[in-house]
């Protein structure tokens, strides 16, 4: 496991343990995970998960428009930025 991955994994486990202790729905867990990134410094983040045969779950956190204080929304439109890169070397 790279140092970067390891760092995130530990942060994630700590955060998710806290989340699991007080929240139950998948949407809540997804939103709480996104909130970890917002508290780290990302302006906003959104995510969706769909398991086979299940309904998709959406969540958002932070700001879509940081300057004007407009919250991120699960139906926000964004560019499909897809220039791949590897994780930074440890």
């Amino acid at each position: 496991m790279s140092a970067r991955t390891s760092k995130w994994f530990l942060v994630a486990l700590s955060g998710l343990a806290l989340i699991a202790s007080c929240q139950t729905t998948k949407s809540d867990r997804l939103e709480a995970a996104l909130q970890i990134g917002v508290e780290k410094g990302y302006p906003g983040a959104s995510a969706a998960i769909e398991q086979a045969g299940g309904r998709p779950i959406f969540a958002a956190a932070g700001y879509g428009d940081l300057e004007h204080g407009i919250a991120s929304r699960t139906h926000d439109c964004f560019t499909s930025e897809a220039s791949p890169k590897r994780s930074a070397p440890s």
Partner: protein
Amino acid sequence: MILQLADERKLSLDAKLPEIPDEAVVGWLRHADGISIRYRNFIDLSPIFKEVEGKVIEGSPVLDTTLAAERIDAAAGVMSTLRDLLKFGRALFRGDLLSEQSRRFLMAAAEGMADLDEGESRVWAMQAARKPYGVIVYKGGDRPGGATAVLAFHPKSDAIFAAFVNSFGHFDESDFLLDVVCLSAVGAP
């Protein structure tokens, strides 16, 4: 030309796209020292992109680069929503969008990955990584236009995951989406 490759390492954000949908989020570029440290002179920012007064993220000013024309070179500037991205992922990973032969080619990056150490990754037709929660096949990336997006498939749980962050300049947004957010969605090991 609005996108200029000044040299092999240098992009120039010097023009704006004419319009984007009203529903679009604002793309933020964190004007971090890291940009010049890791990629010396990687980006020349035009003065048309202003720092947002009073907004500092991790010690760096942020700029609204939503309309940076440079972003059109990623995915042809296609704009989407999470719902549409999931729909595309459904067709791509589970549906009939591709022939079986093409799908195998697409997913080849994940072959044998489960036997590798956690943290291992590949970039083939798709990207694949061995995460603590199993193998993830994905495509993701970022752009100075201020967005990072990931579309992923987790074979173990047959789950499709789509996510984005409206920033560029932290250089760990993709890792965060896969290591924290996707983990919360598909479950801890």
